[in-house]
C-alpha cells in the first residue's frame, strides 16, 4: 500500500463542540511542518447549536481548492455522519465515536474512537473532546504532536490550567490512535520533502495585511459576517501606525466617513458583506462624482436578503458592477485566492488612488474564512501608488482647479491644509473648479472626463490582470472570476492530464473589463465554460455585454465552493459532445 500524503479531511459536529478548532489545529500543525493547505469552514448562523463543519486539504504540493470528496471524515455526532457520509471517497476513512454514531456500513476503513468517554471519564474534562480528536488524527496521519503543542500554548498561554488540561487531552488522543488502533489506510503525512517558510493566513488576514502595506491608515466598518475580522484586525493595528479605525453606527456612516477621511488625505477602506454593500450604494455615486478614492471590501455571502449569512455565494457581482443611479466611474476587483487577497487589495488601493474612484473588492465567505499556506511575498516588489498632488503652479491660480480637464481624466487632488488648494467636493454636476452653477454645460464635459479614467484603468487592467492558464492551443476555454480560481485550475490540470486541450482565463479586475484580452481568448477556443457559485450566472451574463460569446454556464448555488470535479465534469461533457 503506497502512502498518500495528500489528505482531504472533513470534521463535522454540533456548533460549539470545537469541531472547527480541532480541524484548525490539525491544519496549522501540518502547515508548520511544511505542508500546503486549503481549508473551508462553515458554522450555523446561530451562535450555539446547529451543524458546523470544517474541511482541510493538506498536501506536499500546492493545493488550490477544497479538492474532490473527502478522504477522512471525522463525525462528532450522528448528524455529521449522515450529512457527510456520501461525500466520503470510496477508499475513504471514517472516524467516529461509537457511543453516538452507528455507521451504515460499506466504508473501506473505520476507526471508532470513544471521544466523549475519553474526555469525560478518563480526563474528567468534557470540553477537551475536540483536543482528543486532534491528538487522534495527528497520531493516525503522521503529525508530530510537538508541532501542535506550540499552537495550543499560543491559544491558552493566559490560562495555564486550561493549557495543561488541553495538552493532556491531546496526548491522550494521540496515544489512543497510536496504541489502540491498527492503521489500515494509506493516508500519511510524515516528514515533508522540504520545509519552506510559508505564511498561513485567512483571506481576511491577507486583506488587513495588504491594506496596511498599501498605506491604508483609516478604516471604518460595521460588524457583519463574514467581514467582521477585517474591522477587528484594523481596530487592533491602525492605532499603532497613527491611523484610526472606527466602528461606525451603520454602513452608510462607514463609507461616509471613509470618503471624508480620503478627502482629508488618508488612504481609506471599509469592509462589509451584501446587506451593508446595499446600504453604501448612494455614497458610491458620491465618491464617483466627487472623485474621492476609497476601497470597499465586500465579503460576499449567500443571499438574497439576509439569506445564509455563513454560506458562500458569488452573488454580489451585479450589484458591484451596476448599483447606483446614473453613470459614474468605479472599479471592481475580485481576488482568486488567499494569497491573491494580499496582492489585489494593494492593487485596489493603487487603482483607487491613481484614478480617484471607488474600488469594490469582491472577496467572499470562502476566502474570508479559509486559510491557505502562502509563499512569503517578495516585499521589495510591492508597488504602492499615491494620488496625484497639485504642483506649486496649480496652487498659484486664483482658484484651484480640482477637476481640471486632462487627457487621462485624472486631475490633481489637494489635501486640506494646503494653501491655495481649497475646493468644495460636490455631488452636484460641476465645472473644473467644482462650481455647480452651469451644470448642463459641465455635464457634457465631465461625463467624458470621468469615463476617460475608466478607460485608462481598463488599459492598466488589460496589461496586468489576465494570465492564461493551460494549453496555448486549447479547444475549450474556461473563464472564471473570484475565489473559484483554484478549483478551475485543478479542473484544467485534470482535463489536460486526461488528454483534453483546455485553458482558463481569470481576470482579477472585472470592471473595467479587459474585454479585448477576453475576446481574443474566446476567439482562440471553440467552447467557453463559465463556472460561478451563484444561481443566475451573473458573470456569464456580464461577459456578453462586452464580448461576443455564448458561454456554457456551470452554476453551483449550494452555499459551498466548487469541487474541481464539478467543473471537470462539465469540461468532459463539452469535450465529448464537441
Amino acid at each position, binding site marked *: 500500500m503506497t502512502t498518500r500524503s495528500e489528505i482531504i479531511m472533513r470534521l463535522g459536529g454540533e456548533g460549539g463542540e470545537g469541531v472547527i478548532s480541532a480541524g484548525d489545529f490539525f491544519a496549522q500543525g501540518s502547515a508548520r511542518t511544511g505542508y500546503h493547505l486549503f481549508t473551508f469552514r462553515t458554522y450555523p448562523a446561530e451562535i450555539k447549536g446547529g451543524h458546523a463543519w470544517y474541511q482541510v486539504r493538506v498536501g506536499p504540493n500546492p493545493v488550490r481548492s477544497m479538492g474532490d470528496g473527502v478522504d477522512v471524515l471525522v463525525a462528532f455526532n450522528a448528524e455529521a455522519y449522515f450529512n457527510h457520509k456520501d461525500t466520503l471517497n470510496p477508499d475513504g476513512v471514517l472516524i467516529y465515536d461509537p457511543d453516538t454514531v452507528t455507521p451504515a456500513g460499506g466504508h473501506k476503513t473505520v476507526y471508532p474512537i470513544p471521544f466523549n468517554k475519553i474526555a469525560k471519564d478518563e480526563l474528567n474534562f468534557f470540553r477537551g473532546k475536540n483536543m482528543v480528536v486532534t491528538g487522534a488524527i495527528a497520531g493516525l496521519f503522521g503529525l508530530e504532536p510537538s508541532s501542535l503543542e506550540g499552537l495550543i500554548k499560543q491559544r491558552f498561554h493566559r490560562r495555564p490550567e486550561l493549557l495543561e488540561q488541553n495538552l493532556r487531552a491531546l496526548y491522550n488522543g494521540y496515544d489512543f490512535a497510536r496504541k489502540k488502533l491498527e492503521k489500515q489506510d494509506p493516508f500519511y503525512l510524515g516528514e515533508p520533502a522540504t520545509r519552506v*517558510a*510559508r*505564511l*498561513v*493566513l485567512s483571506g481576511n*488576514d491577507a486583506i488587513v*495585511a495588504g491594506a*496596511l*502595506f498599501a498605506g491604508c*491608515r*483609516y478604516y471604518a466598518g460595521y460588524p457583519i459576517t463574514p467581514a467582521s475580522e477585517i474591522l477587528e484586525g484594523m481596530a487592533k*493595528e491602525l*492605532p*499603532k*501606525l*497613527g491611523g*484610526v479605525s*472606527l466602528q*461606525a*453606527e*451603520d454602513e*452608510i*456612516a*462607514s463609507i*461616509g*466617513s*471613509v*470618503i*471624508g*477621511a*480620503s*478627502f*482629508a*488625505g488618508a488612504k*481609506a477602506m471599509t469592509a462589509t458583506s451584501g446587506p451593508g454593500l446595499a446600504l453604501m450604494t*448612494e*455614497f458610491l455615486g*458620491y465618491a464617483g462624482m*466627487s472623485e474621492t478614492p476609497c476601497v470597499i471590501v465586500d465579503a460576499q455571502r449567500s443571499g438574497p436578503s439576509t439569506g445564509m449569512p455563513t454560506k458562500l455565494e458569488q452573488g454580489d457581482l451585479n450589484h458591484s458592477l451596476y448599483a447606483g443611479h446614473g453613470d459614474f466611474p468605479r472599479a471592481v476587483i475580485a481576488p482568486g485566492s488567499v494569497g491573491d487577497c494580499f496582492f489585489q487589495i494593494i492593487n485596489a488601493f493603487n487603482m483607487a488612488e491613481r484614478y480617484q474612484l471607488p474600488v469594490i473588492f469582491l472577496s467572499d465567505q470562502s476566502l474570508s474564512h479559509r486559510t491557505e499556506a502562502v509563499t*512569503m*511575498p517578495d*516585499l521589495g516588489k*510591492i508597488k504602492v501608488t499615491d494620488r496625484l498632488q497639485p504642483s506649486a503652479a496649480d496652487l498659484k491660480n486664483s*482658484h484651484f482647479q480640482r477637476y481640471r480637464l486632462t487627457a487621462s481624466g485624472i486631475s490633481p487632488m489637494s489635501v*486640506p*491644509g*494646503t*494653501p*491655495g*488648494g*481649497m*475646493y*468644495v*467636493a*460636490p*455631488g*452636484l454636476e460641476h465645472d473644473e473648479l467644482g*462650481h*455647480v*452653477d452651469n451644470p448642463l454645460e459641465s455635464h457634457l464635459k465631465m461625463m467624458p472626463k470621468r469615463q476617460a479614467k475608466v478607460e485608462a484603468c481598463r488599459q492598466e487592467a488589460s496589461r496586468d490582470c489576465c494570465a492564461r492558464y493551460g494549453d496555448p492551443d486549447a479547444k475549450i476555454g474556461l473563464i472564471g472570476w473570484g475565489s473559484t480560481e483554484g478549483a478551475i485550475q485543478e479542473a484544467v490540470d485534470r482535463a489536460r492530464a486526461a488528454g483534453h486541450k483546455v485553458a482558463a482565463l481569470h481576470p482579477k479586475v472585472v470592471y473595467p473589463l479587459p474585454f479585448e484580452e477576453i475576446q481574443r481568448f474566446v476567439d482562440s477556443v471553440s467552447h467557453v465554460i463559465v463556472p460561478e457559485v451563484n444561481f443566475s450566472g451573473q458573470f456569464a451574463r456580464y461577459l456578453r455585454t462586452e464580448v461576443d460569446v455564448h458561454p456554457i454556464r456551470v452554476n453551483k448555488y449550494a452555499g459551498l465552493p466548487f469541487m474541481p470535479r464539478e467543473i471537470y465534469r462539465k469540461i468532459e461533457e463539452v469535450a465529448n459532445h464537441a
Partner: protein
Amino acid sequence: MPETMAQLITLAPKDFRSEVKPTWCPGCGDFGVLSATYKALADLHLKREEVVVVSGIGCSSRFPYFLSTYGMHTLHGRALPVATGIKLTRPDLTVLAAGGDGDLFSIGAGHTPHAAARNIDICVLNMDNQTYGLTKAQASPTSLLGHKSKSTPYGVIAQPMNPVLLALAAGASFVARGYSARPKLLTDMIKAGITHKGFAFIHTQSPCVEFHNTFEYYDQRVEEVPADHNPRDLEAAMRLALHPDKFYVGIIYQNERPTFEITAHEFEQEVRPFDGAAYLSQFA
C-alpha cells in the same frame, strides 16, 4: 492655530466669502448664519485652508459653496459621518458641519446622536426652518402639530422633534441656540462652538421666507438664556429645551470631556512606521 501676529490680523470676514453668490432667496434666514460664520472664523483668526465645512443636501446645505475654505457638499443627511472621517484623520483641522432640520433630524437622525455620543470635535450649524426648503415646502420633523404643507394637507400629526433636547439626550457636550435675526449672538455662539473642545451642536432658527416665514413668530418668543442658568447642569438645560413657549437662545449646555479624535489617536503611546516583514511574521 495662528502662528504669528502677522497672520492674526490678515483675514477679514469677507475673506471667508467665496466667489460664488449664494443662491438663497432674498431674506432667507440662512444668510444670517453665513455672515455670522464668516465673522466667527475671522474673529478666531483661522486660516481658510485649515477649515473644512461639510454639509448634506438642502437649501441650507449649499453653505460650503459660499465659503472660501475647503468643503464637501455630500448627501442628504450624511454630513456628520463624512465630517467624522475628516476630523479623525486630521484632528488639527477646524471642521464645521451645516445642515437643515430634515438633513440632521429626518434622514440623518441616526447619525446625529452618534456624533454627539462620540464627542468628536465638530461644530454643527443646524439651520432649522421647520420645512423642507429645497424640495419646496413639505413638512419637516420640526414642523409644528397641525402645520399644513404640501405633504401634510390635513396637518402634521407627529409631535415635532426637539433638536436641542435630542442633542442633550445623546450626550452632546456643547449645545447652544441661535436665531438668524440675532447676528451678534449667533456669531458668539459659533465662536464658542468652534472653540469648544468636543461636539458642539448649534441649533438656529433660520426661517424660510419663501415657504414658511416664521420671523414674526420667533421674534415674539425668542429670549436669552437666563443669566443664572448653569450650563453645566444637564437637567436645567433640558428644562430650557422643554419650555413650551419661550425660545431660549444662548449657551444651553457645556461640559468638557475627552474628544473622540484625540483619544483614538492616543491608544498607542508610540506611533511607529509600518514594519511589513515584522507584521507578516505573525503568520509564519
